[in-house]
C-alpha cells in the first residue's frame, strides 16, 4: 500500500523553488517605477522648467504676514504694547537671538519659518526668509546646472529661464547678506560631502551678487507682456522678474556694499566707497531709464492712489505699476489679516490684548511740512500748538493723529470713538493695548476698516520689497556719494539727465511736497540729511528698509535713533482749531544697540562646524 516517496524529486523541487525566489528578490524590493519623475520631465521643456523656476517666487516671504502677529519693523519705526513676546520688543532689548525663536503662532517674524524649511510655502505661517533663501539658492543652482537639458525651447525661452535663475541666485544672497553680513557665495549644487566654504567679506560677496544680477539683466525681458511666451499670461505678468528688477537690485546691492557699515566690514573704512556708489548709480539709472522711455511698465503711482502701493480694497493686488518686487499674497479670507490687529486699538475693534504697535514721536518727527522743510528748519511753519497742521501730505496717509475723524458713519453712540482720542488718557491710548505714543499707524490699512464703517471685508495688503520711489531715493544717495554733490548726476543718456536733487524731488513732487530747500543743497552732508529724512517718510515701515538703512549708515547707535518717544499732551481748542497743549516728549523705550547689533547673529550650530564660517562679531 505504501507509496515510495522520491526524495530526490522533493529536493529538486525545493531547489528550483528556492532559486526562483532568490532571483526575484532584488526586484521584489525595488521602488515602483511609477513612483519616479525623471530629470528630462523636469527640465526638458520651457513649461516644466518654468514650473521649476517659479517655486522661487514663493521663496520671497511676505513680511507682513508671518503669523497672527507679524513683526518686521525692527528698528525705530514703531513701539509695540507692553507684551513680552514681540520680536520688536526683543530687538529693542538687544535680544537679536530672538529671530531664531519659532513658536509657530505668536512671537515670530518673517525671518524664520515656523517648522524649518517649508519648501513650497502656500500660506503665511510657512514663510521664513532665512530658510527660504537658502532653499531658493539651491534651487537656482540646480536650475543653472541643468540648463543644458532644456532642449525643446526657443532662444527667448532659454534666456527667460536663465535670467530668472541668475536673478534669484543673486537676490537670495543679497537677502541674507544684508542682515547677516558676508557669506560664502553658493554657485554650484552642493552634495552631501564636506562643506567648508569660507565666509567672504561683504564686498566680495556683493561683487559676486552683482555679477549674477548684471548678467540676469541681460537675459531678462523689459516687459513680459511683450515676449512671445508672455502672451500666454498676457496682462498677468506684472509680478514677474524683469530687467528693471534686476537693475534695481543690482543698484541696491552696490549701494549697500558701498555703504559705511559694509565698507568698514570689508576694508576698515567707515565711509562710503565711491566706486561702488558709482556702480550703484549706473544700475539705478538703467532701471529708471527703462521706465523713462516707457519700455518697462514701472511708474510712480499717482498721489490719489498712493495707498495702492500697500493695499487695495478690491480683488486687485496692490503695487501696480510702481512695485518692482512684491512677495506672494496668501489670502485667508476677510478679516484674517495680521495688519488688522497691528494698527487698530481695541476701541476700534482691534485685539484687546496688546497686538498693537504705534509710531513713536521720535520717528514721526521725520515727517516735515508740506513745503518740504523739516520741522526744526527755520521758517518751516511748524506750530507746536497745532502740530498736525500743514504737514507733509504723507503724514496723513501714514499716521493717525489726535482729533482726526476716524469713524465716518454711525449715529451719536459712536461719538466716544469717532475722533482719534490720542491725547493723554484718551480712549485710543493705553500702555498695554492701545497707542502708547499718541499716534496710530494707518499706512497699511484703510481708516474705514473700523467696526462702524466696516470696510474690512476685502482688503489686500501687500507692501512691496522694492518700488520705484525707493529706486529714485537710492539713486539720489548713490549719485551723491559717488559723484559728490546733490547737483551731480549719472553720466547716462543725453535725453535723460537726472541729478540727485531731481530724484528726491520727483518722489516729493508726487506727494505734493515742496522740493528740497536750497539750504540742504549746499553740501553732501546737508543733502544726505534730507535723504535720510526722506527715506524715513516715504518708506516708513516697508520691509526691513529702515532697519538696514540705520545699520548701513552706521547710525543705529546714535541716541536719536535709539530713544523711542511718546507725547503726553492735553487736547484743547484754540482759535476754533484743535490744539495740543502741555505737550511733553517722553522716552518710552531706549533701544539697546551696541556694535554687535549691526548684524544679526548666525545660528550657533552653524558657526560651530568649521572655523572659516564664523559668528558675527559680538555674538
Amino acid at each position, binding site marked *: 500500500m505504501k507509496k515510495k516517496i522520491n526524495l530526490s524529486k522533493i529536493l529538486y523541487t525545493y531547489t528550483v523553488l528556492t532559486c526562483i525566489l532568490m532571483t526575484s528578490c532584488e526586484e*521584489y524590493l525595488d521602488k515602483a517605477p511609477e513612483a519616479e519623475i525623471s530629470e528630462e520631465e523636469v527640465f526638458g521643456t520651457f513649461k516644466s522648467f518654468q514650473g521649476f523656476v517659479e517655486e522661487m517666487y514663493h521663496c520671497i516671504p511676505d513680511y507682513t504676514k508671518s503669523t497672527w502677529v507679524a513683526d518686521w519693523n525692527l528698528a525705530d519705526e514703531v513701539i509695540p504694547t507692553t507684551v513680552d513676546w514681540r520680536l520688536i520688543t526683543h530687538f529693542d532689548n538687544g535680544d537679536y537671538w530672538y529671530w531664531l525663536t519659532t513658536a509657530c503662532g505668536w512671537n515670530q517674524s518673517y525671518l524664520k519659518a515656523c517648522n524649518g524649511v517649508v519648501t513650497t510655502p502656500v500660506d503665511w505661517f510657512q514663510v521664513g526668509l532665512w530658510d527660504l533663501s537658502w532653499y*531658493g539658492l*539651491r534651487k537656482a543652482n540646480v536650475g543653472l546646472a541643468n540648463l543644458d537639458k532644456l532642449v525643446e525651447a526657443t532662444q527667448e525661452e532659454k534666456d527667460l529661464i536663465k535670467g530668472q535663475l541668475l536673478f534669484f541666485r543673486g537676490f537670495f544672497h543679497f537677502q541674507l547678506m544684508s542682515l547677516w553680513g558676508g557669506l560664502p557665495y553658493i554657485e554650484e549644487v*552642493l552634495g552631501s560631502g564636506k562643506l567648508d566654504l569660507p565666509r567672504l567679506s561683504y564686498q566680495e560677496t556683493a561683487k559676486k551678487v552683482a555679477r549674477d544680477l548684471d548678467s540676469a539683466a541681460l537675459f531678462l525681458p523689459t516687459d513680459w507682456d511683450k515676449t512671445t511666451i508672455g502672451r*500666454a499670461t498676457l496682462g498677468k505678468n506684472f509680478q514677474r522678474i524683469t530687467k528693471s528688477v534686476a537693475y534695481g537690485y543690482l543698484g541696491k546691492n552696490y549701494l549697500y556694499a558701498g555703504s559705511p557699515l559694509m565698507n568698514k566690514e570689508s576694508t576698515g573704512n567707515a565711509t562710503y566707497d565711491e566706486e561702488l556708489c558709482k556702480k550703484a548709480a549706473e544700475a539705478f539709472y538703467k532701471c529708471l531709464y527703462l521706465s523713462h522711455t516707457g519700455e518697462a511698465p514701472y511708474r510712480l503711482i499717482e498721489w490719489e492712489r498712493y495707498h495702492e502701493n500697500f493695499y487695495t480694497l478690491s480683488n486687485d493686488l496692490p503695487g501696480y505699476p510702481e512695485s518692482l518686487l512684491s512677495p506672494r499674497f496668501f489670502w485667508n479670507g476677510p478679516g484674517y489679516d495680521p495688519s488688522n490687529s497691528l494698527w487698530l486699538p481695541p476701541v476700534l475693534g482691534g485685539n484687546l490684548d496688546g497686538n498693537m504697535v504705534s509710531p513713536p514721536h521720535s520717528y514721526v518727527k521725520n515727517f516735515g511740512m508740506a513745503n518740504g522743510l523739516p520741522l526744526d528748519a527755520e521758517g518751516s511753519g511748524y506750530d507746536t500748538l497745532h502740530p498736525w497742521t500743514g504737514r507733509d501730505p504723507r503724514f496723513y496717509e501714514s499716521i493717525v493723529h489726535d482729533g482726526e475723524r476716524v469713524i465716518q458713519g454711525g449715529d451719536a453712540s459712536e461719538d466716544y470713538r469717532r475722533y482719534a482720542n490720542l491725547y493723554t488718557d484718551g480712549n485710543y491710548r493705553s500702555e498695554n*493695548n492701545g497707542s502708547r505714543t499718541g499716534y496710530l499707524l494707518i499706512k497699511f490699512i484703510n481708516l474705514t476698516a473700523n467696526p462702524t464703517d466696516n470696510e474690512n471685508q476685502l482688503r489686500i495688503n501687500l507692501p512691496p520689497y522694492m518700488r520705484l520711489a525707493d529706486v529714485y531715493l537710492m539713486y539720489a544717495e548713490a549719485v551723491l556719494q559717488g559723484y559728490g554733490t546733490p547737483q551731480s548726476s549719472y553720466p547716462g543718456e543725453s535725453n535723460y539727465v537726472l541729478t540727485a536733487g531731481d530724484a528726491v524731488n520727483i518722489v516729493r513732487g508726487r506727494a505734493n511736497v515742496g522740493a528740497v530747500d536750497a539750504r540742504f543743497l549746499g553740501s553732501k552732508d546737508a543733502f544726505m540729511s534730507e535723504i535720510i529724512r526722506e527715506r524715513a517718510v516715504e518708506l516708513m515701515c516697508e520691509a526691513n528698509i529702515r532697519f538696514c538703512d540705520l545699520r548701513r549708515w552706521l547710525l543705529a547707535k546714535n541716541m536719536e535713533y535709539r530713544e523711542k518717544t511718546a507725547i503726553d499732551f492735553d487736547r484743547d481748542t484754540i482759535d476754533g482749531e484743535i490744539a495740543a497743549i502741555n505737550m511733553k516728549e517722553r522716552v518710552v523705550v531706549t533701544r539697546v544697540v551696541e556694535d554687535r547689533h549691526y548684524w544679526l547673529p548666525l545660528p550657533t550650530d552653524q558657526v560651530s562646524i568649521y572655523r572659516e564660517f564664523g559668528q558675527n562679531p559680538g555674538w
Partner: protein
Amino acid sequence: MTLDYKKLIKEKRKMGKTNKRLFQFFSLSNSKREKLLRVFLFSVIILFSTSSFAQENRIVKGLVVDNNENPIPGATVILKESTIGTTTDQYGEFSLNIPTSGNQILVISFIGMLGEEIDMTGKDYIKAVLVENLVEIADVVVVGYGRQKKESVVGAISQTKAEVLERTGGVNSLGAALTGNIPGLITLQGTGKPGEEDPIIYIRGQGTWNNSQPLILIDGIERSMSGLDINSVESISVLKDASATAVFGVKGANGVILITTKRGSEGKANITVNSSATMKIPSRIPNKYDSYDALRIRNMAIERELGVEPGGWASITPIAELNKYRNPSSLEEAERYPNVDWQKESFKDYAMSYNSNISISGGSELVKYFTSVDYLNEGDIMNVRDNGKGYTPGYGYDRLNFRSNLDLNITNSTTFTANLYGSYGQKQDTWSNFEYTMWQGVYGNPPDAFPIQYSDGAWGFYPKDPVGVVNSVSNFSNSGIQKVNTTNVNTDFTLNQDLGMLLKGLKMKGVFSLDNSFISESGVIDWGGTYAKWISPDGEVFLLNESGRNRYDFVVGPWSYQSDSVQYEETYRKIFYQLQSDYSTKIGRNEITAMGLFSREEYAKGSEFPHYREDWVFRTTYNYNERYFAEFNGSYNGSERFGRDYRFEFFPSAAIGWMISNESFLQNISWLDKFKIRGSWGRVGNDAVSARWLYQTPWEYGGETYLGTTFTDRSPYVWYSEGKIGNPDIHWETVEKKNLGIEYAFFHGLLEGSIDVFKDYRYDILVNGSDRAVMVYLGGDPPTANLGETEVKGYEIETKLNKRFANSFRVWINCSMTHAKDKILAADDPALYPDYKKKQGYQIAQYRSIMISDFVNTWDEVYASTEWNANDGLKLPGDYNFIDFNGDGIINDYDEAPNGFPERPQNTYSTSFGIDYKGFSLFVQFYGVNNVTRYISFGNFPRQKNVVFDQGEFWSKDNKNADSFLPRFIAQTSMTGNYYAYDGSYLRLKNAELAYTFSSGLINKLRMNSLQIYINGNNLLLWTKMPDDRESNLGGWGGQGSYPTVRRINLGVKIIL
C-alpha cells in the same frame, strides 16, 4: 521528596506521539477516507456539545493531594486523548466515568503543579500526589519562530503569562499592563485618554534616537498590540539579547515582544466569564491659584518690575477690586469678577469603565479551539455640559474583540491552524482640529478671565485674547462628536507537516496571513458656534458673533451629522507568507535542532506604493546531555528602504550555556535546584527609518505660483522641485549585543532568580538631516546618514521567593531591578562645539539647560551678576543667578549644559508581594523609577495671563529663602534655567489585588468550577516631586498637560464553568 525534572521532561517528550503518515490518508480507500472524515466531523460536533456520550463505562475515583498531603481542590482530571474530564471537589476528590475499553490513562494537572499521568488499568481508586512546579510554571519559552524548553534557553528572554497581566487592575492597554512585570522593559505613559493609553516601550533602554520601539509580533506576525484584549493573551515573551532577536534580523535591534494568544487544549469545554467594573479617578493635577491670589501675585510682580517697566502701572489691580473676585457681593459682580477653577470644572471626580469577556476553549484529539469575545467600554473623565443642541459630546472608547483559534489535526502528521481575529474599536473624541486648546484651557486658563457660562446661558469668551485664552469647557461641549471606528480583521492559516517519513525529526510549516484594518469616521460636526459673551470688570458687555464685534445679533452655526465614512488613506492591508522547516535529532547525548525559514511581507496604507520585505532565517541549537548548550542563529534580510548595494544583510548571533547543576559532581547537593550560566553575542539591525527611499533624491511635482494681478490668479506653470536630498550609501543601523546571565534556583524553589549583564554597541545609526552638522547653505534638509554610535550598558536582577506552608498557605515575593544607561559615542556634532555642548558623551535626549543657582537678592548682586546676552537690562533682585557654565562672562547659549537625566529613567524597580491561602489571594506591586528628569513648564503669567501655579513660597525681599522666584508679568526675560526640570523619580503602588475563589459547595451545585471575586487597583498611590502624574510629555498640549492619567479601582468576577 527530590524532584527529578529530567525524568519528567523525558516522559513528557514521550507523550508527543508519532506518527502515521500524511500520505496514508490519501492512499486509503474511499470508504475508509469517508469514515475518517465522518469521525472528524463527528468530533467537531462533540466539541460544541460538551457532554460525553454513552458507552460502556465504569467509574473511577481518586484523591489529589500535594506533597504535604493537603487536598487540591479544582485540579483537572482528564482521560488522556479524550474529552472526558472533571475537576476535584473541595476535598480534592474526583469521580469520573470512563469507558472500559481504550485509553486508561488519567492526566491530572493543576496550576502551579507539575502534571501527573496515572494508568488506571485495573484500578478504581488512586491517590495522586502533585508536585509543585517550583522552578518555572511554564517550562516552555516562546522564542522567535518557535518554542524552546526553559532549560535549554541560552538567550536573555523574559516571559510573563496571562494571570500576571490579568491582575493589573482594570488597565486595558496591554503595553501598560506589562509595566513592572518584565525586567528590562521600560514604559512611559503620557495621557489617560480613553483608547490612547498605550505607553512608549523601551527594552533595555534606548539605543537609538530613531525608532527605538521594540518589534511586536502577535502569533508570529508583526502587528500592533494596541487594541488587543488582555484576556486572550496566553503569554508574552520579551526577547532582549542578540541570540533571541537576531532571527528577526534587520527588525530586531530594539528587542522583540512576542505575544501568543490562547489556544484550546484537549479536554472538555472550559467556559470562562470575566466581568469587571473600573472606577477611574484623575491622578494628580497641578495646583493653580485662584483669581484673588493670582492678581495679588500679579500686583507684586508688577511692583517689582516697575523700575524696568513703568508701563506696568496700567495693569495694577486695586485691593478693593481684588476682593470682589473672592467675595462678590452679587451674581452680577461674580460675573464681572469671575473666579473659575478650570480643572475642577473640567474634570469629573471619577469615571467608570467596564470590561466583559467570555471565552470557550477545549478540544479533542482532532480539533482544539479557543473562542473569546471581549467587550470594553472606557468612560470619560471630562465634565461635559449641556450644550442645548441635542447631542452630548465627550471622550470614550468602546471595543469589541473576537478571536477564534482553531487547531485541526488533519492527519496524524498534519495539523492545520486557523486564527481569526476581529476587533472593532470606536474612539470618541471631539471634532475639533485644535484639540490642544482643550488642555490649554484646562491647565492654562486664567481663573479671572470669564465664567464658563453666564447666568443667562451665554458661554464665556475672552475678546482680549481669543486665541490665547479659550473656553475649553465650551469648546469641549460644542465641538461635535468624532467617532473613529477602527476595524481590524486578521487571519492566519498555518499548515504544519511532520515529514518524519522522509527524515525523522523533520517538519515543515507554511503560514499565510492576511491583515486588514479600516478606519472610518462618523459623528456630529459642529464648528463650535455658541452664543458667547464677555462682561469686562468695568461691566462692558462684548458679544461674540461672526460678523464683527458689538453687532447685537448672533447666529449659532448649525451642526450636522456625518455618516460613517471610510478613511481610505488609512486603510491598511498586509499579506504575509512564510515557509519554515524544522529538524531535530538526537544522537546519543547530542541533541541537535535546525530551523530554516523564508518569509515575505507586503503591506500598504491608503494609496501609497506597497512596502516590501523579505527574510531568510536559520537557527541551529546543540544540547549535550542537558549540560552544555550552544546556539547559532542567522538572518539574511532585505529591506526596500535601502539602495541595491545595501539591500540585503546577514545578521548572525551565537550563544552558549552551561547548566552546572546538571553536572554529576553537583547532583548530590540537595539544595541546589538549578544553576546555569549563559552568554550570547550577536548583531541585529534596525531599518525603522523615518522615510522611504532615502537613497534617492526624487523629483516632486505640484503646486503653482500666486502670480498675476488679482489675488486669485495662479500661474499656469506647475512646480517641479527637488525632493529630500538622497544618500545612496544609506543603510541600516546595526547593534552588537552582548549578554551574560546566570539563573539559579535553591532550596527546592524557595529562592529563585537571575542576573543578566548586557552591553549593546550600536553603530551606523542614522542621523537625520536636521540633526546633522551640515551647513545651511546646502540649501535643503541634509541627507540622512549613518553617522551615529551609541552604547547601552546595564543589568537586570530578578529574585523570587516562594514559600508554601501547610494548609495551602503561600507567600511569595518577586523583586526585579533594571539598570540601563545609554551613551552617545558619535552623533555628527558640530566639530567646534565644546564637549558639553555635544551630544557625544551623553545620554540620548539628555536634558540640557542653563542652570540656576541661588537668588540674586540685592541690586549689588544684580550688578555683580554675570551679564545676560539678551535682556540684561531687565534683571532685578529676586531673579535667579544663572551659572556661567563656560566662564566667559556672559550667559548665553554656551551655558546650556547637560544636567539631570533624560526623560527616560535609568533605573526601574518592581516589587510584588503576594499571599495565597486556600481561596484567598492578596497581592501588591510597587513600581518605581529614578535617575530621570522631566521638564514640565507650568509657567506663570504666560503671555500676561493671570495664571499662577502653586510652586511654593515666592521670593520677596523679606523672604530670601523662598521655594520659587517671583514670576515676571510684563518684563519677562523668558529665562527660567532648569527651574522647571523636575526630578522625575517616582514610586507607585502600581497594582494591588484581593481575590477570593470559591471552588466548591454551592459553586459546584451551580455547575461552576470556580468563581473568583476580586478587587484590584492600578496606580493607587504615587510619591513624586512632579506636579502631575505623567511619565512623559506626550499627547495633549505636550509639556503643558493633557488628558489626566488616572488611578483605577476595579471590581470583578471571574467564573469558570
